[in-house]
């Protein structure tokens, strides 16, 4: 920690530090552009656009193709960059007009999901159009040289990037203060009622805002091209950092986004400049991401609304009132018993492949149920629930690999891993609410992912840990299936029991009316924190089982896509019923398995399904079913 920043080649520390600083500032520019696009869109539409990283990625790809098509050169390069920004803007407009317009009044969670559907769609479209290989970015004509600074050489393009961000900031300032469009956008950001009062113009204002936001993201992707590549992982790669920048800067604040992007650049510099120093045996450069997220956590604890954001009076609930949570009627219990009997008899009837799928479905049912407990009972939306699934899996795998624990013991490490992670991350998360909380959970999941990815000595990095096999008695497919069946059923019953316990009631009380709950002695934040931990524990159990099912673990288990899978499962099944996540896990896993076997472009289809579902059932399938069928019952 305390080692002075030195470089291997004996460069004076200050010069080295300055050159690192400039590199960091240059990299902050693209991040700022993307984040400020996201924050502008959020300010007016209140939609957190997951697909914003996709606009960034498309910007890079389109710029690549356009520059190539225009034959490079000064006009080719800058023409390509501008074309890319415009094209990204138009794609944003298309997304707004075809999808988002239909769901402006849907619950936040559904909006987030729809935009994630777009992420999946864009991934496969990009794969189809540009192929799986990264494309090396062309250099910017006229800016290929470097400027000497002492013994260090600063690339000219870096200097351009450093100046470009404040330039954009200035142009945006003029736009928002000197044009009618900009003044309307500002008014709409400050006062939601304003937007409604605008009447017909409102539609075009929202579309215009989407164009601007998406074009900024596309511009960000295009200008970073000379420093890097266009690749298929750019979208999710940047989105977590963009979330960090917007949340730290304050949602809706452009200047805040700029300051936060600079802050992150500085942390980078610190981490790189201290390369070689270590903290608890971990190289500092390895924990760069962790540092970034740690800073975010601190900012959010001190100023939950961000550096320059406005404190919002956060109402506890959005959308319709939750219906009563009722114990299942007798008929359903018989049905559940029948399903159970079928599950018990399954090994005698199904082949090995089907049994493996069934095992996976059971594990995901538990994973989804743990998330449902947090969301449905606790009213806490997590966008990073895979973190605890992954921590459970790694908890078990690490014990097997480093301490040669047998499966039976390792399976106890799994819930501990999940619960411990959730205990720590949850402490921060429950301080926020709504989309802020959701974004923070996602950011923490990315920390966990980054640690698993970067701490190679312990976690095996990208390759993960292999050779996590069950004990011999559980080694056959039917035997392992039996083990999973027993564990999952016990856990599901426990979750159900807790939902109807005084603790479960207290959680629901905090969800229904935080005001009343507080006024009858319930510490809502503490209840949520415990719920977070419990949900992490159950997700950890699922992760541990999953590790032994697959025989390995990898950072993917903590990735954003798996978190989203769990959300889709919960929403498919419906948030209102305890059986929902089970139905959702079966439907989703079966659907995904089918799609994956059908085509290489399963992401595209899955994305279309998600978007279609959200548009068709903006209140969720269960909400739809309830409104459709239950309405009759209450009337009768």
């Amino acid at each position, binding site marked *: 920690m305390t080692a002075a920043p030195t470089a291997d080649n004996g460069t004076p520390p200050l010069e080295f530090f300055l050159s690192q600083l400039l590199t960091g500032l240059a990299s902050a520019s693209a991040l700022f552009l993307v984040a400020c696009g996201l924050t502008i869109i959020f300010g007016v539409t209140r939609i957190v656009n997951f697909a914003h990283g996709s606009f960034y990625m498309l910007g890079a790809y389109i710029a690549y193709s356009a520059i190539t098509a225009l034959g490079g050169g000064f006009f080719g390069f800058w023409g390509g960059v501008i074309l890319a920004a415009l094209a990204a803007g138009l794609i944003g407009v298309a997304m707004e007009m075809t999808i988002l317009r239909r769901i402006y009044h849907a619950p936040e969670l559904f909006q987030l999901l729809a935009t994630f559907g777009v992420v999946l769609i864009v991934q496969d479209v990009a794969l189809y159009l540009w192929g799986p290989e990264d494309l090396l970015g062309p250099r910017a004509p006229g800016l290929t040289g470097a400027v000497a600074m002492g013994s260090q050489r600063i690339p000219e393009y870096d200097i351009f990037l450093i100046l470009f961000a404040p330039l954009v900031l200035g142009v945006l300032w003029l736009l928002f203060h000197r044009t009618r469009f900009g003044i309307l956008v500002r008014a709409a950001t400050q006062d939601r009622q304003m937007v409604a009062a605008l009447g017909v113009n409102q539609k075009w204002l929202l579309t215009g805002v989407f164009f601007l936001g998406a074009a900024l993201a596309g511009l960000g992707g295009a200008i970073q091209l000379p420093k890097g590549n266009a690749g298929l992982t750019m979208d999710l790669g940047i989105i977590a950092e963009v979330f960090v920048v917007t949340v730290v800067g304050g949602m809706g604040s452009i200047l805040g986004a700029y300051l936060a992007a600079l802050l992150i650049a500085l942390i980078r510099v610190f981490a790189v400049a201290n390369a070689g120093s270590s903290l608890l045996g971990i190289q500092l450069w390895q924990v760069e991401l962790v540092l970034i997220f740690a800073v975010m956590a601190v900012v959010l604890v001190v100023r939950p609304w961000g550096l320059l954001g406005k404190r919002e009076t956060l109402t506890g609930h959005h959308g319709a009132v939750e219906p009563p949570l009722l114990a299942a009627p007798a008929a359903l219990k018989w049905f559940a018993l029948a399903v159970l009997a079928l599950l018990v008899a399954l090994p005698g009837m199904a082949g090995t492949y089907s049994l493996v799928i069934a095992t996976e479905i059971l594990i995901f049912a538990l994973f989804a149920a743990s998330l449902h407990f947090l969301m449905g009972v606790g009213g806490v939306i997590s966008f990073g629930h895979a973190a605890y699934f992954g921590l459970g899996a790694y908890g078990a795998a690490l014990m097997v690999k480093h301490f040669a624990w047998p499966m039976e013991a390792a399976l106890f490490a799994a819930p501990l891993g999940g619960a411990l992670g959730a205990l720590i991350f949850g402490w921060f998360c429950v301080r926020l609410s709504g989309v802020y909380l959701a974004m923070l959970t996602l950011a923490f999941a990315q920390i966990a992912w980054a640690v698993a990815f970067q701490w190679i000595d312990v976690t095996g990095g990208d390759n993960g840990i292999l050779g996590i096999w069950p004990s011999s008695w559980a080694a056959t497919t039917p035997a392992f299936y039996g083990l999973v069946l027993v564990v999952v059923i016990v856990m599901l019953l426990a979750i159900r029991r*807790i939902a109807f316990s005084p603790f479960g009631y207290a959680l629901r009380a905090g969800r229904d009316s935080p005001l009343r709950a507080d006024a009858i002695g319930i510490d809502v934040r503490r209840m949520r924190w415990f719920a977070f931990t419990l949900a992490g524990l159950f997700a950890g159990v699922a992760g541990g089982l999953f590790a032994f099912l697959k025989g390995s673990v990898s950072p993917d288990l903590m990735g954003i896509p798996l978190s989203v899978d769990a959300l889709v499962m919960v929403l498919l099944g419906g948030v209102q019923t305890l059986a929902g996540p089970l139905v959702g896990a079966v439907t989703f896993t079966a659907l995904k398995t089918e799609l994956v076997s059908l085509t290489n472009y399963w992401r595209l289809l899955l994305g279309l399904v998600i978007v279609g579902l959200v548009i068709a059932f903006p209140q969720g399938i269960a909400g739809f079913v309830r409104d459709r069928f239950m309405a009759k019952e209450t009337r009768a």
Partner: protein
Amino acid sequence: MSAVLEVAGLSKSFGGVKAVSDVSFSLAAGELLALIGPNGAGKTTCFNMLMGQLRPDTGTIKLAGRDIAGLAPRRIWRLGVGRTFQITATFASMSVRENVQMALLSHHRRLLSLFADAGSQYIDDAMALLTLVGMEAQAERPCGVLAYGDLKRVELAVALANNPKLLLMDEPTAGMAPRERIALMELTARIVKERGISVLFTEHDMDVVFAHADRIFVLNRGRLLAEGTPQQVRDNALVQETYLGSGAMFADGGQ
């Protein structure tokens, strides 16, 4: 007799607006004190400071001698203060009985119990409270479907669940028909007299106020305008001039 509640120099402003300034009063055991004043006078803000939903800018709030200003609502509740809200706050996903059970579970410090069946705890106590407020027949209905007046009764039952020594009732009869108002206030007055609970309440219906309040406290633009027995307040020239004459006091409903 020492005061149950002693408030001194209480102030709160929002931005530039002085919602409550320099308010002082005290409340004796078993006393019903009415806080009246036009909409926007600062009544709800006073309640929010007394129960901890808002932190006062200045001033002390002594509950049985202990300063509770700035404590969280849940702590103040544990010290024996119950509250009903101007805009009712109940748990919509629970039945009427479960709403009361929730308060009882909290009162008996059972909130972290993970495996007990919440619905079968303290049923008798809950039903007794519901009977007290005349809601026993609707015990199994979800709170989300109740009429507004019934919700106010549920809130009263919930507020009584921890045997409070002080009850804060912000417009307990708002949204009710006149007959219902009188009935609910009579019920409240009877319960609190039996149990020796002190009550601070706001109310727009002057008949109700003059019928049940032991003392009245008039708030105007955040300041104490007058204080006294119903008769004294009725005769107070300043009050008459400012309100009773203009009819503003009789303006119905909340904001």
